């Protein structure tokens, strides 16, 4: 298959279709509405299910229902809509049915605006639904990665009977880049043994998340925690660039991952040995690798489009091995490489060299 020019939101939609997504339930919200609109054309074309629900609340519950039947199902939304979905996501988690959600993050809190942001990190990574749980969080930084990780999301959701989030943002959703889509998978005919298909010549299946007996409920929770431990062991993903000899480490994901990549190259041109670690799974976080690199470098700079949410995880796993600093912008402002370069320069002065280096990009 050749590369074509795709808009991020539409690429994610088509990727889901290629992954054999059987049902999509969503609600319009900027900056991800193109995903819904694309699905409204594409799903009926293939005889698959599409509903524009009456709200995100309804949409996530339709997802829950369809997931109970063992179908591959997804929804997409943006930050305020994701807040609405938290109840349904908690039920999906507790009931152990597989589902995929795409969050194309925008600015908050409140109505915010429709510009890009990474302000949902906590809501997604720490699990904004009530109870003890973690969803697998996949963070692409290009349209191609958005495609690949959307397909992976369905596979991981099925593999562990769990929730998987694709963590996008307004910039990634709106930009157009070349990407290659995988071949089309048909909708699966077979349903897993636990699915609700009608108790035809078999004992009934019940999908629930309530157990009044505390010991039974603890058992469910221990089972969920064991599942999360398994995921932590097997599914950590990240990319690193120029870390072998790095003195300073940038940690950034998504759109900020790309910006930091450029800033890293610019810094290197100035003779500062900067590396970049770009987490692809925000949960499970590449905690071991961060700890290893923290032993090696003089300092870590975390860059986010927020007041600093991932940086708390970085600090947690660095455990004081080296200084961790933060740079971020909010309100929808996307930091450009120049800004990050300036901060790198200041860090360099502070932590590494006595002589300031002029931090102006060539």
């Amino acid at each position: 298959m050749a590369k074509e020019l795709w808009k991020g939101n539409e690429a994610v939609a088509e990727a889901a279709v290629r992954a054999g997504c059987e049902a999509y339930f969503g609600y319009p919200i900027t900056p991800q509405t193109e995903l819904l609109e694309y699905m409204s054309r594409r799903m009926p074309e293939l005889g698959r299910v599409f509903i524009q629900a009456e709200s995100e609340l309804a949409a996530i519950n339709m997802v829950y229902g369809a997931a109970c039947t063992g179908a591959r199902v997804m929804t997409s939304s943006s930050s305020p809509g994701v807040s609405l979905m938290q109840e349904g996501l908690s039920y999906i988690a507790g009931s152990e049915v597989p589902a995929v959600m795409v969050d194309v993050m925008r600015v908050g809190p409140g109505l915010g605006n429709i510009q890009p942001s990474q302000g949902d990190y906590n809501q997604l990574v720490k699990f904004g639904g009530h109870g003890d749980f973690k969803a697998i969080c996949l963070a692409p930084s290009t349209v191609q990665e958005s495609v690949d990780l959307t397909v992976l999301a369905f596979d991981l959701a099925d593999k562990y009977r769990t929730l998987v989030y694709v963590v996008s943002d307004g910039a990634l959703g709106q930009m157009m880049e070349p990407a290659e889509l995988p071949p089309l998978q048909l909708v699966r005919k077979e349903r897993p043994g636990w699915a609700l298909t009608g108790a035809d010549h078999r004992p009934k299946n019940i999908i629930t998340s309530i157990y009044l007996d505390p010991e039974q409920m603890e058992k469910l929770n221990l089972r969920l925690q064991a599942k999360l431990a398994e995921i932590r062991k097997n599914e950590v993903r990240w990319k690193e660039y120029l870390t072998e000899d790095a003195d300073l480490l940038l940690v950034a994901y998504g759109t900020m991952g790309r910006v930091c990549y450029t800033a890293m190259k610019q810094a290197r041109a100035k003779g500062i040995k900067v590396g970049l670690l770009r987490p692809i799974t925000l949960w499970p976080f590449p905690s071991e690798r961060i700890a290893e690199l923290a032993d090696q470098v003089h300092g870590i700079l975390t860059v986010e489009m927020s007041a600093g949410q991932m940086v708390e995880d970085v600090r947690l796993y660095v455990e004081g091995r080296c200084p961790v600093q933060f740079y971020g912008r909010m309100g929808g402002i996307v930091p450009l490489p120049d800004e990050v370069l300036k901060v790198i320069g200041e860090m360099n002065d502070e932590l590494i060299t006595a002589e300031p280096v002029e931090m102006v990009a060539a």
Partner: protein
Amino acid sequence: MSAQMVREEVVFKRPAPLGQTVTHYCPGCTHGIIHRLVAEVIDELDVAGKTIGVAPVGCAVFAYNYFELDFVESPHGRATAVATGIKRVQPDKVVFTYQGDGDLAAIGTGETVHVAARGENITVVFVNNAVYGMTGGQMAPTTLPGMVTTSSPKGRDVELAGYPLRMSEMLATTSGAAYIVRRSVHDVANIRKTKKALMTAFKVQMQCMGFSMVEILSTCPTNWGIPAGDALKFIEEKMVPYYPLGDYKVHEAVKPLVAH
């Protein structure tokens, strides 16, 4: 004396979809009757093997323990959205929700209206007993004016709390609704009529005619604070005048299906 073979004929038994369990419902609660009617209808239609139920949050939260059917526990109010998800990916299955007045008419009103508007081919069993049973007797959107509840201790004051909702009347105005009726289970004659309504409702779904709902006036002696027998009278004397029994929407196409 020679032994004689006597042929036994079962004339009445527990319908198979109703499990061999003891329910947790209060004495005098009509959930038991309604569960049985639903099970009988599913049994007579012979669809137990392809029926999926959606349980509410409410006294019937453990309905799945009382039916021998595939079931899912829905978040409070969302049963019709969950049912929509199930039915859309498995249109050949029979999907029903079983909801109380809080579930359907308070927190779930949005989902309730839209499942009817979409004409979703599912069946809603709406158990209306004018109070929140499971949580101990608070005011419901269907609590009658003047009715004392734990959150309207001086009686429902319409100045503060507004008037009760008549869901059957409201949903009947949607074009997607094919069969919307209100029945009651306060005496034998009405129990029979309720069963017929449930039979029609499930047939409407099976014929893909659109949304069907049977609202059933029910008792809650515990939270009404009256004996069980009086509770049945309460339905007849107090609830029926406000919530008239009858057929609020019977689409032309449904008329031949109506069970008599």
